[in-house]
């Protein structure tokens, strides 16, 4: 019988430093972000450039401008747990799902850029940290996003000192509004049962043969389709090794999953807290809503599930910070965090009744955005597949059936 070592990782406590960081972000949200957000339309995707610049200034003074940046470039190592704590709090606003703290805390470039050459880092990476440049990641194609290794059909062919790209990318967030992106294409067909080779390219909107089209979706921040027709990419824009693209896509996806789940949990916690305030003052048949068992059970279930979801995030983040392979744990927290958050916001809407779906409240917007979170960066089913495969691989039947 083999059984995966469970490890001594239960009973997690946050350090005093992390609690202090969380308190600072909470104050920032209350004192700086909320007053600006109150003046924005319900479905706004960003605040004014002046407000954003001011918020960024404060966030930068707070030392939050270089999260997810390696120490050589002014960030700090092993900051996954910090990013989770910050993202959970920064997502507690109307725009939280896709613009935590109204963009005050920089998204930073896709982390794979730090695996590039010195020239690439200075041309594309640093300006995202010190200037206003932004980047995106283009993995998904019309053929599907769940199995990138086989779904990626965009072809890259070397011609002289250029690569020629042909194909289409779908649902790419920020693509049409960014200065550059990392795009994954097939550089070699599968051979002798070996999977096709995927290579990462840094692309700019000015390259010949590239075009973008918005795709309207359930959330106000529309993603883009990218069409590549004999798009010319200079040789020096290959990111990492030729054929090393798949590992790079995975590196980006895995590192993002814990903060991704943390952000969802933040929105859901705020929704639950709002609902608690509401049911205590809402008169209902002979009493207030808070006294009804049906309401109390919704609150209890939501609170328990959120606590569990948060622990899973901390656990995966702490593993990642310790330098352990957190791939499966990242899937666990992404799956449970996003599914829980959606359920909790749905219950909060239920407790608010009609007010829950009114645009006066952030709830209906959060529900729409959380709906996407169960599909983006790996649909729930794909994470279940990863978790189940790992479990089956390591488990042979327990004491009675081993």
């Amino acid at each position: 019988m083999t059984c995966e070592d469970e490890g001594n990782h239960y009973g997690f406590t946050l350090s005093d430093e992390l609690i202090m960081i969380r308190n600072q972000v909470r104050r920032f949200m209350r004192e700086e972000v909320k007053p600006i957000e109150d003046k924005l339309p319900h479905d706004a995707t960003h605040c004014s450039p002046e407000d954003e610049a001011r918020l960024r200034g404060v966030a930068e003074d707070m030392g939050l401008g270089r999260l997810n940046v390696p120490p050589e470039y002014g960030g700090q190592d092993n900051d996954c747990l910090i990013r989770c704590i910050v993202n959970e709090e920064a997502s507690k606003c109307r725009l939280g799902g896709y613009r935590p703290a109204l963009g005050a805390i920089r998204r930073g470039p896709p982390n794979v850029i730090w695996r590039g050459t010195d020239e690439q880092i200075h041309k594309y990476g640093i300006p995202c940290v010190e200037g206003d440049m932004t980047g995106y990641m283009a993995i998904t194609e019309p053929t599907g996003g769940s199995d990138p290794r086989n779904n990626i059909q965009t072809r890259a062919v070397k011609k002289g000192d250029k690569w020629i790209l042909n194909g289409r990318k779908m649902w790419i967030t920020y693509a049409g509004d960014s200065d550059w992106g990392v795009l994954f294409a097939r550089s070699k067909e599968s051979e002798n049962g070996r999977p096709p080779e995927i290579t990462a390219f840094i692309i700019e909107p000015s390259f010949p043969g590239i075009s973008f089209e918005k795709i309207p979706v359930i959330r106000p921040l529309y993603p883009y389709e990218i069409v590549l027709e004999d798009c010319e990419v200079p040789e020096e824009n290959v990111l990492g090794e030729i054929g090393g693209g798949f590992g790079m896509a995975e590196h980006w996806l895995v590192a993002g999953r814990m903060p991704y789940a943390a952000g969802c949990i933040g929105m859901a916690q705020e929704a639950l807290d709002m609902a608690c305030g509401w049911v205590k003052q809402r008169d209902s048949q002979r009493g207030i809503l808070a006294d009804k068992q049906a309401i109390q059970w919704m609150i209890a279930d939501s609170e328990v599930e959120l606590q569990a979801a948060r622990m899973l995030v901390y656990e995966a983040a702490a593993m990642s910070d310790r330098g352990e392979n957190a791939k499966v744990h990242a899937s666990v927290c992404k799956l449970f965090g996003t599914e829980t958050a959606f359920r909790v916001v749905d219950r909060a809407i239920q407790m608010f009744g009609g007010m829950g779906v009114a645009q006066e409240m952030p709830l209906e917007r959060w529900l729409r955005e959380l709906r996407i979170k169960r599909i983006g960066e790996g649909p729930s089913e794909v994470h279940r597949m990863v978790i189940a495969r790992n479990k089956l691989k390591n488990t042979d039947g327990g004491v009675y059936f081993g």
Partner: protein
Amino acid sequence: MKVLVPVKRVIDYNVKVRVKSDGTGVETANVKMSMNPFDEIGIEAALRLKEAGSAEEVIAVSIGVAQCQETIRTALAMGADRGVLVETEEGAEPLAVAKILKAIIEKEGPEIVILGKQAIDDDSNQTGQMLSALLGWSQATFASNIELGDGTADITREVDGGLETIKVKLPVVVTTDLRLNEPRYASLPNIMKAKKKPIDKMSPADLGVDMTPRLKTLSVVEPSKREGGVKVESVEELVEKLRNEAKVI
């Protein structure tokens, strides 16, 4: 020159305070605690003196239960240089706190002590005044501006009639008002550095201070609930209500 800033651990100002069911005090179990906001202003003022080159060292002192160490860490994360924790039971009274501070001040020798004008838990508004009397130092309460001169300080005070500026000799006890400054955020790197800054620990006995309470709390009750307002249709109705219901005219 050293600046000493006492920092008190109080219920966070965003928490809705609840009276304990037995009426002996307010509920503090599982309640978020933070630095008294007026003391944050004190720390900020001290840091600005240091940044302006007028002070060399900022010392944060907290008096109370062991967890006051977290309050001191917050001050250190904002930029204070070191901390002193005097461990006592909960609920030290203003006079006892002033006596402890006096003992620490005699050891440390600061020339400026910046306290909050009051703590948001008991709103006593006493400690600064008592301390200055015990020390025989100048006193400048409710400060909204501090200008240091040569051995003196010009301090603007928020008084009922407006603003009053007084010139005091150093050493001085200052208490902060809300408009003195807007306290900074503790930055991520400074939060990490704060862990390494020293905190001295001592007890009131080490300082020879007698903590025996001199006050007795008889009971603590919730403030009476405010009634919801009403809209009136006309001036006549308003006057009628002021006269007959509110009985104020």
